[in-house]
């Protein structure tokens, strides 16, 4: 009897604990679900529930040269930003995560400091610097902006991996005849790989969605998808914006879900 009431109470407790989690999840999902749902609307309004189902807004997006060019800009940007930030983030994360030198803590603070500065300020600072250098509207500014924004995240993720490195493995490698460089490439890098891969995906997802800094530095020919959404939402609300948003959303969610199953990136939190 006592046993049953105890299991009963435990089940009740578990349900009571699950309710707030479920509510918060619902709150987090609500606006995203609404965007996805309205992208399939048949009418040109945001009336809920939408009447009818159609893919016309997706067709409209893919038939619109402006959206297509923005998709291309975002994709090309990604191909430049991710390798650069992975290189910088791996070096930086390895140094501050596993390093043994004076000023390591200060350096690690410096590396994450771009997060602490408001993006509006970062955007303005970069814009001003580009004006000084005569590079306004060029791709350089956009690349710089995206690398600065994603770099702290990449550093942190790699640093977590690097801090967990067992230095004795490097010793073992050297003892077995591997030169320091060989030991780094055959032992250290493979052990850091989960962090590097997670950092790369994180950087990719953040770069894909970045808008607050990009707005300042993007020129007429370098409008990324989020920047175009930013302008579109201010001018007119159209379900085609919902369609492009859904496309971005699906990509991001797929990346993070696959990543957590394969690399358990939740442990980097």
């Amino acid at each position, binding site marked *: 009897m006592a046993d049953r009431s105890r299991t009963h109470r435990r089940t009740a407790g578990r349900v009571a604990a699950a309710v*707030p*989690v479920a509510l*918060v*999840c619902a*709150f*987090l*999902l609500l606006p*995203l679900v*609404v965007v996805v749902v*309205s992208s399939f609307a048949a009418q040109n*309004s*945001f009336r*809920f*529930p939408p009447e009818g189902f159609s893919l016309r807004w997706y067709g409209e997006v893919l038939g619109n040269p402006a959206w297509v060019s923005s998709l291309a800009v975002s994709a090309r940007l990604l191909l430049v930003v991710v390798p650069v930030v992975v290189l*910088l983030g791996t070096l*930086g994360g390895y140094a501050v995560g*596993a*390093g*043994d*030198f004076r000023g390591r803590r200060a*350096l690690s603070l*410096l*590396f994450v*400091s771009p997060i*602490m500065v*408001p993006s*509006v*300020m*970062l955007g*303005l*600072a*970069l814009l*001003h*610097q580009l004006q000084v250098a005569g590079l306004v509207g060029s791709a350089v500014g956009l690349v710089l902006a995206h*690398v600065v924004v994603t*770099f702290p995240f990449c550093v942190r993720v790699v640093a977590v991996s690097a801090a967990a490195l067992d*230095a*004795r493995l490097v010793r073992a490698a*050297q003892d077995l005849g591997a030169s320091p460089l060989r030991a780094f490439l055959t032992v250290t890098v493979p052990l850091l790989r989960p962090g590097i891969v997670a950092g790369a995906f994180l950087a990719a997802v*953040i770069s*894909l*969605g970045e*808008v*607050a800094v990009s*707005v300042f530095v993007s020129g007429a020919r370098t409008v990324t998808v*989020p920047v175009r959404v*930013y302008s579109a939402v*201010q001018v007119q*609300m159209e379900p085609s*914006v*919902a369609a492009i*948003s859904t496309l*971005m*959303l699906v990509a991001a969610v797929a*990346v993070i*879900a696959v990543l*957590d*199953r394969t690399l*358990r990136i939740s442990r980097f*939190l």
Partner: protein
Amino acid sequence: MSAVAAAPRARRWPRVRPGVVPAVLPTVFVLVAFLLPLAGLLVLSLRPTDAFNFALPGFSLRQYREVLTTPYLYRSLLESLSLAVRVSVTCLVLAYPVAWYLARAAHGWRKTLVFTVTLSPLLASEVVRSFGWRIVMAGEGPVNRTLQALGLTDASLPLLRSPWTVFLAVVHVLLPFAVIALTASLGAIDDAVLRASADLGASAAQTFRRVVLPLSAPGLVAGAVIVFSLTMGIYVTPLLVGGANQPLAGLRVQSEAMVTFNQPRAAALSFVLLLVTLVVCAVVTAVGRLAERGTRG
């Protein structure tokens, strides 16, 4: 190392750890792409300007004087401060149960689901999230339609103009950061400590108040700091959800820079904003440390 292994002993080897060499390239990058532009912005904020708000050579504190005396500007700082405090508290309260779940639950599809849902707003662009709130709160959007269906209101409410809508949208944008910070510190609490507390006769509520809450103080501080500082400078979400007329510092910086093209003033306002943010964050961190020491001492 293995099932047979005894408890790990203290590491006796001097570690084979990297020196400063790998840090050189990233450090140069941060200096050039981050600190140099910030320094340039600081210089800009200290320049006198001509009638068209272009910077002239020389030194002037005029921009800072105006930031601190013009109600249009300094009220935006106060308003941002108020919003940031409310958003931080709300985010921590909402994040706590989720973080507890993520830190304690066994790895499985349910945890992956909660994890994905929690981070999806962070990984979906800020514009997408803001756009979503526009639809949610629109005249014929889900909230108004639900209220009407329930007979609570006849006409559709102008929800988009309510400051609460912006508040909700900002909470939505920043909640994942609070969850991340809290999950880390809740995950670090040893299960044995909780069992010990229960074993000593503490109720679940007592265990929470006396053990879990103090031990999660670092996570609460970290979460508060990150959410607070991000709210202080936020502008995309308020702009897209509530429009350009709200008295928020981030919005003012953006409009000074991009609408009225007064870059020196935008620069000065942003530095005051940064200073206020850093001071508050330092105070929160210090208070957190004191509280932590208090519970341990």
